[in-house]
């Protein structure tokens, strides 16, 4: 194992139960909150009557739209300021009481009168209202390169199909929670959020107060995956309003059932995809059109077809996105947003094409490799996708792939499939502060978060490396708005964003110490050349001459309190880019289908990923495996159920919404293909999302390979593959 594979920074706390998540912060006089929900899928709230609730024991107060009215209008306050009901099970009030059970008793006693109106409970009911959103993420909704329609009409072979993906739920194991209180006009908010600064900005806006008067703290998250963001704010605001009204700290924690409805979902998609080829297997035209669900109170679209613009070389590509508004909960980004559903369609269709054209699926992809970004007309900053194919295929043993439909293992019919994956490498603005104590202890701080993705460890390692000290000399502080402004956690961009900032801060410190040493008569380095000094093994030393000393000695002699420096880095400036940066991967899977019974189990996965330089191989592997596990869930298990008659979601439990278990785990083989990327600071790309995309199509392709059935709708379940014995 590499010496970069240091254990997770906060692991000892987590394995001993000492790790405190924000919803567990103790507070004197704490009140507990429960939300009051309405059954109708669309309509208006006429009245919320707390008179009976007020008589329940332990009741403290209720807040509803009347209390939220003074908040400034914004998407984050719309759901709680307005009386409109947008989906079944929407909360309209929050009750606080001495204990959680008292709060629930009181919430049950609140009488809500509503006026129902006709609702749309499924996309299919309102396809005629579909519209083109302005943007899908940071990309335009519609793209046209060349003339895809003409190219498809002229193509030697066309593969044209509809692909569908179900709505998924993020389900971090830690439910959203907040413990908040007011200190005069100042607010303290401990909450499980992927963006402490974003949350602070929204509170400042909603409550019309200076950001400096708000402290948001999120030092540990029990997972996020995209849902610990904006859709949590309205419910968190209600808790803050209750804290204000009562003058006491308030705690709100969502129930698992509420997590199905209140904090987002991966949007349901219907994708029409056509690939045109010449007989020699070159793509000549692609059309990828997506229709997806959004709610009636907000707008969001995954960039589902966007990656079809980049992955392969093709002169004629058209893509578009449509949204249909329904009275269902609002989607937000979820693990590999866009790429997971989009690559399911594209990489399934590529497999269908390989079969039609008589090509090996890997060969067909290699043949259509894009040697530059054809959409923007720019080079890649680096692109090792072909290495991923090659190394992945080699490790998996792809060359020994049996003929379709021939491999069996007892009752199991075996299939192999593969697919590509990709995700853009971007950076957000970030500031990092590094403090050195006179005894050589290092403190590094950044107001970003660690969702379990290893940010504490990465920042500690980057800092330790730069200062030439062992990682255990470094203390890392994250997740607090009193720290320097850091990026939100999402889009696999945190490490890439904080790396240059940490590098800048540590470079300043090295320069300062070096200057001090050179100027210090008492130092063995006195009078040395600045550019000859290096930081290694806790020391500052000259490279050429064999002299040096622990750098802490330099500080100690000066009798300083220590040193401090801040580093700053900017966000990716997309229009100015000279090269397009993405991470890539190729995933190979072996699945078994229990003949006649339709059970599908993944047996073996090999993922080869190329995403810049890997800071910590141990944690990188965990990230990739975790992503692949999420992808297996999307491929085989995860779908929400909604009663179309009432619009109410059904099966809001983890016994009904299935995610993979230990027993579902295949053998994983992860190949980390390291890249030097001169365009990126430290060659750091993000890795988190890569594993979650691609594997869905690889599994669907393997299912075809096993039983000859093409399943174009996720999740793939028993009924989709069931055949006679």
């Amino acid at each position, binding site marked *: 194992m590499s010496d970069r594979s240091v254990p997770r920074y906060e692991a000892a706390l987590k*394995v001993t*139960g000492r790790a405190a998540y924000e919803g*567990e912060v103790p507070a004197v006089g704490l009140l507990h909150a429960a939300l009051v929900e309405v059954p109708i899928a669309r309509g208006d709230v006429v009245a919320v009557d707390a008179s009976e609730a007020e008589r329940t024991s332990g009741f403290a107060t209720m807040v509803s739209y009347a209390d939220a009215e003074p908040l400034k209008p914004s998407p984050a306050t719309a759901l709680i300021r307005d009386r409109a009901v947008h989906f079944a099970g929407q909360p309209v009030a929050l009750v606080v009481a001495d204990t959680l*059970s008292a709060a629930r008793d009181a919430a049950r006693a609140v009488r809500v009168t509503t006026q129902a109106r006709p609702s749309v409970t499924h996309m299919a009911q309102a396809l005629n209202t579909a519209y083109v959103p302005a943007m899908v993420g940071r990309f335009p909704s519609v793209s046209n390169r060349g003339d895809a329609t003409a190219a498809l009409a002229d193509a030697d072979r066309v593969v044209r199909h509809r692909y569908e993906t179900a709505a998924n739920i993020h389900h971090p194991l830690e439910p959203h929670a907040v413990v908040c209180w007011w200190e005069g006009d100042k607010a303290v908010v401990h909450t499980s959020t992927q963006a402490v600064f974003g949350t602070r900005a929204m509170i400042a806006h909603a409550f019309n107060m200076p950001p400096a008067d708000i402290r948001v703290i999120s030092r540990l998250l029990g*997972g996020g995956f995209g849902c610990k963001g904006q859709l949590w704010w309205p419910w968190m605001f209600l808790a803050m309003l209750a804290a204000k009204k009562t003058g006491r700290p308030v705690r709100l924690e969502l129930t698992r059932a509420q997590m199905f409805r209140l904090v987002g979902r991966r949007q349901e998609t219907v994708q029409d995809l056509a690939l045109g080829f010449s007989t020699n297997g070159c793509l000549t035209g692609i059309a990828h059109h997506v229709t997806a669900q959004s709610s009636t109170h907000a707008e969001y679209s995954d960039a589902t077809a966007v990656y079809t613009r980049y992955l392969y070389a093709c002169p004629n590509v058209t893509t578009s996105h449509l949204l249909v508004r329904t009275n269902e909960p609002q989607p937000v980004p979820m693990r590999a947003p866009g790429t997971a559903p989009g690559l399911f369609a594209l990489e399934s269709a590529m497999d269908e094409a390989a079969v039609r054209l008589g090509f090996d699926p890997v060969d067909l992809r290699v043949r259509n490799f894009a040697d530059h970004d054809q959409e923007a007309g720019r080079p890649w900053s680096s692109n090792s996708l072909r290495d991923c194919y090659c190394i992945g295929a080699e490790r998996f043993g792809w060359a020994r792939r049996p003929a379709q439909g021939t491999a069996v293992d007892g009752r199991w019919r075996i299939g192999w499939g593969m697919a590509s994956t990709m995700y853009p490498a971007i950076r957000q603005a970030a500031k990092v502060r590094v403090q050195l104590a006179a005894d050589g202890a290092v403190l590094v701080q950044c107001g970003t978060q660690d969702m*379990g993705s290893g940010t504490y460890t990465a920042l500690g390692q980057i800092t330790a490396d730069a200062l030439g000290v062992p990682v255990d000399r470094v203390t890392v502080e994250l997740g607090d708005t009193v720290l320097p402004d850091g990026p939100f956690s999402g889009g696999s961009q945190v490490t890439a964003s904080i790396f240059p900032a940490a590098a800048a801060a540590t470079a300043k410190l090295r320069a300062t110490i070096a200057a001090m040493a050179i100027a210090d008569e008492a130092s063995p380095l006195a009078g040395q050349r600045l550019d000859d000094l290096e930081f290694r093994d806790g020391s500052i030393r000259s490279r050429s001459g064999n002299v040096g000393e622990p750098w802490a000695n330099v500080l100690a002699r000066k009798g300083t309190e220590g040193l401090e420096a801040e580093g700053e880095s900017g966000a990716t400036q997309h229009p100015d880019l000279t090269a397009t940066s993405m991470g890539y991967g190729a995933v190979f899977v072996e699945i078994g289908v229990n003949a006649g019974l339709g059970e599908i189990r993944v047996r073996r996965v090999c993922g080869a990923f190329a995403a810049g330089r890997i800071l910590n191989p141990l944690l990188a592997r965990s990230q990739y495996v975790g992503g692949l596990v999420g992808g297996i869930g999307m491929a085989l298990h995860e779908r929400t159920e909604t009663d179309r008659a009432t619009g109410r979601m059904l099966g809001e439990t983890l*016994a009904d919404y299935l*995610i993979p278990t*230990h*027993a579902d785990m295949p053998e994983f083989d992860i190949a980390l293909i390291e890249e030097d990327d001169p365009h990126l600071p430290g060659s750091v790309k993000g890795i988190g999302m890569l594993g979650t995309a691609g594997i869905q199509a690889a599994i669907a392709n393997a299912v075809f390979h096993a039983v000859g059935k093409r399943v174009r709708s996720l999740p793939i379940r028993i009924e989709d593959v069931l055949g006679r014995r």
Partner: protein
Amino acid sequence: MMVETPTTAKGSHADAVATASVVALAFSINGRHCAVETVATAMLLDVIRDQLGLTGTKKGCDLGACGACTVLADGRRVKSCLALAASYDGADITTIEGIGTPDRLHPLQAAFIRHDALQCGYCTPGQILSGIALLAEKPKDIAAIREGMSGNLCRCGAYPNIVAAIAEVAGL
């Protein structure tokens, strides 16, 4: 609130508990005796987290489906979110706080760190308690560990590393 006494008496109210909305209970928690008064509807998980302040035990689903709330009751692993506290009166409960400390890790905790068997860490206490109970059942192979651990979900997908950590301690 928690009252600590030096004895470890078991079963404070061995005989009939009259019909009540509030119940007085006594447990041994991590070897310490403690007495609590709680509503009849309280789950063991609520008592452990909210009344005793032992927040190492997590609430992931509150319906028995995730395993985050796993504790040992009289040596057997149970899901404390579906355990009516009153039914466990007198029980000997072990939570993650009773397993090891950062300075004195249980071998399985150390193996979790070595194998990076955790990401966000929210399922981790439950995985470890479940793993300790499973180790006592002497799983015969990796498949038995996977099956035996399937009551503990991990949304971050740390599964293979968790199994590797348990297998190492089991000597497999």
